[in-house]
């Protein structure tokens, strides 16, 4: 067993980060880790920025981490990667979905979407950038984007052998989306180069 590891899954309400966290947690529990998971509910569900933290190890104390403490950030939207970058350890990893989603303040013309999000992340952290939405659509449905990102995360963390992830996914997602999500997992996994 290793010391506690932490992952931060960030995005915009409704992008499916919760299911991703669920697959991760189910696998980690099967592998025998102590696991804690924390998410923010409430007003943030309505078009706001959302985050879920997953911590695992031999014995996990706090269910949340603060700044400079995350081993990996998985960003479902690229500006969200920037927003939560201060949570990453200096040697932390970022998996970023190359996808832009305007906030209501941007849509209203009150401010502009920041330029250079990906470049900024790449110049400070080890990053894996992919167009998870396009990959998901090419597989049949944009809805499996979250599992594409999950595949990338597993590869990026070198956690392939922790548990049979395909088996965990098959048992976690609804039966009729099983094949789609397995394809999504493999595609996301293969999108991350060594």
């Amino acid at each position: 067993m290793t010391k506690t590891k932490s992952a931060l899954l960030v995005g915009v309400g409704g992008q499916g980060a919760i299911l991703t966290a669920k697959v991760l947690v189910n696998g980690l529990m099967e592998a025998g880790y102590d696991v804690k998971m924390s998410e923010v509910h409430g007003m943030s569900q309505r078009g706001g920025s959302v985050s879920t933290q997953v911590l695992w190890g031999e014995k996990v104390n706090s269910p949340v981490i603060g700044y400079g403490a995350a081993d990996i950030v998985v960003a479902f939207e690229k500006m969200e990667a920037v927003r939560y970058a201060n949570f990453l350890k200096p040697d932390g990893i970022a998996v970023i979905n190359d996808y832009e989603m305007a906030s209501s303040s941007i849509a209203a013309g009150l401010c502009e979407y920041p330029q250079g999000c990906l470049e900024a992340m790449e110049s400070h952290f080890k990053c894996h950038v992919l167009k998870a939405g396009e990959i998901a659509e090419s597989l049949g449905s944009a809805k499996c984007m979250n599992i594409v990102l999950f595949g990338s995360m597993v590869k990026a963390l070198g956690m392939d052998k922790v548990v049979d992830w395909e088996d965990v996914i098959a048992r976690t997602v609804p039966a009729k989306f099983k094949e789609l999500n397995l394809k999504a997992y493999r595609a996301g996994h293969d999108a991350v180069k060594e």
Partner: protein
Amino acid sequence: MDRKLLSGNEAIARGAYEAGVKVCSAYPGTPSTEIFENLPQYKDSLYCEWAPNEKVATEVAYGASIAGVRSLCAMKHVGVNVAADPIFTAAYNGVNGGFVIVSADDPSMHSSQNEQDNRYYAKAAKIPMIEPSDSQECKDFLKAAYEISEQFDLPVLFRTVTRVDHSKSIVTLGERTEHVAPPYARNTRKYISSPANAYRNHPKVEENLNKLREYGKTCPLNRVEMNGTKIGVVTASIAYYYAKDAFPEDTSFLKLGLTNPLPIDLIRDFASKVDELYVVEELEGFMEEQMHAAGIACKGKELIGNMYELNPQIVKERVFGVKPEITDVGVTAVSRPPALCPGCPHRGFFYTMSKHKNFVIAGDIGCYTLGGSAPLNALDSVVCMGGGFTVAMGMAKAFEAEGVTDKKVFGVLGDSTFFHSGMTGAAEIVYNNGNLIPVVLDNSITGMTGHQDNPGTGFNLRGEIAEKIRIEDVLRGYGYKNVIIVDPQDLKAMEQAVQDAMNSTERAAIIVRRPCLLIKRIKHDIGKCTVDTTKCIGCKKCIGVGCPAILVENKKAKIDHNQCVGCTVCAQVCPMGAISREEK
């Protein structure tokens, strides 16, 4: 043994089941809501309900306790303000079946209007308080709370915080132990809180608290973890885990589960075993103040502060000066504030109100609090549940007193809030002749907390069909002779309703009625709107409705079809007729 990953709230529901609880009543409120959402799975063993408000919930649960069964009520921290009246007197009367009140506090105000520290309620009401640190403790400590309630003849305040409620950790499940109520016997001396009885009950409360103070020394919910004699930490709730991560490995801990009355002898004994003593607690210095008063030297709030949630990195920085290594990537993310959903029925109402600069609008707690955000900006105040009508009443009376005649006052609240505490305000306006128009935004659900039923929806917590109380019947019964019901998605009709109410010679109220689009059991009329870019002149009037589905691209409006549901509010404000709707 079955092991499951449960949130604190799921574990509290499980704990109620295992403890043999039979009657449960609550009003939803973040972060407490999921406790009761998880109770119907046990409905063969216990009765559970959504009450109209927290005071009702507390009284129902306490009534069940008087009748002899174990009972539960739950609410968010500000809900305890509403329920405080019965809680204080229940302490004097005492219990028959165990009675537990869950107070879910919200440090950092993730979804709340303040971050009051409800531990002071336990002290003020003179009742035991139990604070769990994780999901396993949520379940196990709740069971212990019933034992303590019955043993010491007091209601128990079970105090959680957002991180305990919403974090998931592994829980070992147990079996239900049935708790059988003794045959009911009237006990007027105990349960009629007349002044004479209350006078005699007060010393009994003090005596019970003293017994509890003695019990605190050996109570298994309090535990000492000796790892060294250099540093000791007194802590409770989620702060225990933050401190575990922040302090060195040879730190000793006094981890408290029973925090009122504070086991001061136990703390003194622990303090004598370490060189340096810290108190790590979120929000106020509840424990620290009492330790200082008892002459126990310790450090806490002077380092840690009394605002917002903590985490291990914050504790480490404030206690040891170790700053986290933060990387500045040089790009700043812009804010992503919550907004009314595309197709939200509240949009048409607030857009209409935003066009009248002489309107003064007192709002309330719910999704419609977002009507005060840009670009709608159609609220003057939001205070508390039910305050929409009555704060507006006070403003109207003040304008009258000052001779201000160019303002028109509206009080606005939702359907669930109307049944919660808006009805008394509706009576106040009629009774004391308020010069204002009360408006109920009836979206037929308790929206913000995630869709709970209420007396106006026709269903109950257990999913059964319930008597549906009609808001218009209530208002008419109170004397509102002109109740105007309008669909806010029709902007012309919405404006007409406002004008009709203002010009009404009889007392008027408005019910703005359209169900929330997220209600699953209703078949909604979904379409999508499209901008004809040849007609769009880029005037941005459609942006003014504040819909997340509309953006500006190349100086023209564009509608995101993934988000749009075809409500046509934007189409109705377009001066060029450039937006049209088609079926999805």
